[in-house]
């Protein structure tokens, strides 16, 4: 068979496997070969689990041969961000402090991926502890954007997004605390969806900011993302913040949207996110897509969300505060690195040396910012005030969704920037998440879908929907995709 299996969508792969026109092993081997051919240039993967992937693929083929009914993604390879615990498979979170750690259990999402018959290829690169917007803060080296290898693939989930754009995997898992699924999707021309907070399980997700962290699907098409969302989503009794309600039918919504009819759908452009701060090329691609959405029948209005302006500073107080507490568990006692235990040093000295050696600069900055914002003299002015701003941002969303069905904006203010351009000024890096952060503070779903090019680099459009209305964002995103098409990266 001459079809290049790595260029197919997950739906197409699953169809061929189900009909017996190819095998899960063939599909998996094709992707492992692709990884071997290009990943020395892309560096999307921190660990490739060749043996585990082929064993999982053989299992799918055997079950199919035995006449077993398989799920809609059976035999489809998936790349998993290194933030999720994978039993027996190295899990580093992009940090030296967990180098060599092999978790004794699977995250719920990983377990659901296995039960669905997907084939885990390996673990993808990320900014250390998911703190960053470029994957340059990985302790294991940057990932390169397949559209231009000198540019960043976004972050923190740049590895997952780059793996898709480089055709190393048709599906990937990410996690989104302030935009870490959507922004990499935007700058690599792929689809990234942040589910409603609590709609996907955090069990086995290494915690960064527990009230914001949301794992979710990454893919090259909206329908593929919806299918992956359906496999991983839904209530998990092992996550006490998991919403005990059925997941909306995101797959049906994506299929409906692909029909290209948005009659009766009212979309609001967030007026705060289309002014200064965004690159002209990003705004031009966004405006063209808005016209396309209008042609599909959507009614478009401008909506002001005045408190969104304060989302970035509020986020950079709340997330570091939660991280300074969460990362206290990395103390060199139960897992990972231990430094300086020479029999003479105290526990406290060993902890301090271990954390100093194990954490990179961005993680240290955020731990210290969080420690500052939570200290008694500054708590009210910083962390307390940020929590109040969070309430006001939620009220902006609630008021907006009384007027419109979904909000839209560019996903990120700028296209993929050159590697090294923003690492010396941490706050410049934070600006990459300007448009994605409000959704995290509110807890609703958001998706980035490719909407065009600016100087040959991908631009993403973000759709934001009310909490537990994930289906709505898939319908709009699929409709836009039907109008503007998917983006094809240059050949590597």
């Amino acid at each position, binding site marked *: 068979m001459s079809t290049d299996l790595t260029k197919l969508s997950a739906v197409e792969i699953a169809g061929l496997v189900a009909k017996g026109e190819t095998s899960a092993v063939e599909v998996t081997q094709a992707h492992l070969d692709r990884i071997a051919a290009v990943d020395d240039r892309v560096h999307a993967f921190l660990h490739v689990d060749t043996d585990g992937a082929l064993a999982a693929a053989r299992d799918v083929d055997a079950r199919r041969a035995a006449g077993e009914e398989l799920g809609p993604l059976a035999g489809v390879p998936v790349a998993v961000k290194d933030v999720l615990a994978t039993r027996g498979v190295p899990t580093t979170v992009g940090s030296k402090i967990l180098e060599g750690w092999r978790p004794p259990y699977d995250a719920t999402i990983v377990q659901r991926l296995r039960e669905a018959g997907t084939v885990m290829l390996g673990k993808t690169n990320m900014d250390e502890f998911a703190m960053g917007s470029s994957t340059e803060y990985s302790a294991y080296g940057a990932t390169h954007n397949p559209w231009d290898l000198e540019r960043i693939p976004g972050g923190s989930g740049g590895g997952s997004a780059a793996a898709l754009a480089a055709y190393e995997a048709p599906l990937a898992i990410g996690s989104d605390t302030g935009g870490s699924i959507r922004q990499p999707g935007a700058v690599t021309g792929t689809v990234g969806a942040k589910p409603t907070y609590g709609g996907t399980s955090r069990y086995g997700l290494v915690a960064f900011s527990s009230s914001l962290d949301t794992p979710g699907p990454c893919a090259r098409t909206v329908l593929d993302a919806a299918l992956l969302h359906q496999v991983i989503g839904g209530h998990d009794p092992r996550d006490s913040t998991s919403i005990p309600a059925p997941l909306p039918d995101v797959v049906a919504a994506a299929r409906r949207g692909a029909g290209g009819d948005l009659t009766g759908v009212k979309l609001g452009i967030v007026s705060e996110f289309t002014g200064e701060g965004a690159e002209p090329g990003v705004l031009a691609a966004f405006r063209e897509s808005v016209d396309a959405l209008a042609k599909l029948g959507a009614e478009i209005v401008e909506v002001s969300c005045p408190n969104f302006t304060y989302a970035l500073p509020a986020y950079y107080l709340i997330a570091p505060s939660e991280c*300074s507490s969460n990362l206290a568990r990395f103390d060199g006692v139960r*897992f990972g690195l231990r430094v300086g235990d020479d029999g003479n040093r*105290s526990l406290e000295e060993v902890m301090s040396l271990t954390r*100093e050696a194990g954490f990179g600069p961005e993680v*240290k*900055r955020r731990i*210290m910012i969080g420690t500052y914002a939570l200290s008694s003299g500054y708590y009210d002015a910083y962390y307390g005030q940020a929590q*109040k701003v969070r309430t006001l941002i939620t009220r902006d969303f609630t008021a907006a969704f009384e007027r419109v069905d979904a909000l839209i904006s560019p996903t990120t203010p700028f296209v993929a920037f050159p590697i090294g351009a923003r690492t010396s000024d941490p706050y410049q890096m934070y600006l990459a998440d300007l448009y994605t952060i409000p959704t995290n503070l509110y807890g609703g779903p958001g998706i980035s879908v490719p909407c065009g090019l600016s100087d040959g680099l991908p631009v993403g459009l973000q759709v934001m929907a009310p909490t537990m209305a994930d289906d709505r964002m898939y319908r709009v995103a699929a409709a836009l995709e039907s109008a503007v098409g998917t983006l094809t990266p240059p050949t590597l």
Partner: protein
Amino acid sequence: MAAISREEVAHLARLSRLAVTEEELDTFAGQLDVILQAVAQVGEVAAADIPPTSHSVPLTNVLREDVVTPCLTPEEALSGAPDAEEQRFRVPRILDEDVAS
């Protein structure tokens, strides 16, 4: 005026159990100052009467039936430990000798 001094950053590093170097202190002091001045913008919002939001999912006291479910074996739980002894995590001494004796 700087939002944070080099001495305060050194104090934060101690509280955070980070044995930072003198060189790092120089770098971090400037960077944390820029970040703190920027995030201080939240203070511009009139929010005195606004209740804080700590979490978007209003769930409290999630309970389950008190039944035993599968869990890690002691060997699995200790498998990633830098040091273990008699089915326990082994840590450096936590008491000074004069206190311990």
